[in-house]
């Protein structure tokens, strides 16, 4: 059984790495959760492949507070994301607690 992987994203310039790592991990049978926070939340609105990431990964969520602080309407849910996935830093904690491996990008 492949290890599970959590990806913590704070930087908007890392999206291609997020996609690449997620694809590689899923190909190995890994469970993947991605959490976007601070300026990383720009990826949810500016990356065309964000909806594809939401389908590919087992769980994708973003920090609602960071999203609002980056200038977005907190009610404007990014394409591909469930409204319930507009969440808090507890999602980051869930990665640390529940996933075997962790990478910060």
């Amino acid at each position: 059984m492949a290890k599970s992987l959590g990806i913590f994203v704070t930087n908007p310039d890392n999206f291609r790495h997020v996609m690449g790592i997620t694809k590689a991990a899923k190909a190995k049978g890994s469970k993947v959760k991605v959490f976007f926070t601070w300026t990383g939340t720009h990826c949810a609105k500016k990356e065309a492949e964000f909806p594809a990431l939401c389908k590919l990964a087992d769980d994708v969520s973003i920090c609602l507070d960071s999203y609002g602080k980056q200038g977005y309407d907190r009610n404007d849910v990014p394409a591909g994301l469930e409204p319930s996935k507009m969440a808090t830093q507890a999602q980051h904690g869930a990665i640390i607690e529940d996933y075997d491996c962790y990478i910060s990008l």
Partner: protein
Amino acid sequence: MKILNVYRSEPDATTKKLVEIVTRDREADSFKLNVDAPDYDKLVDKIFAADQTICWW
């Protein structure tokens, strides 16, 4: 304890020193993300093989 150091940019003297400190007396591996086409498959294998992964900016 095996540590994987992932480089987002070419490590400068400070980063090299910090890596030296955190990997002292530990097994260490590295991966460069600051290339045009990183081998993500290889990176994931390294992440799974490590006890801890550190991303350096």
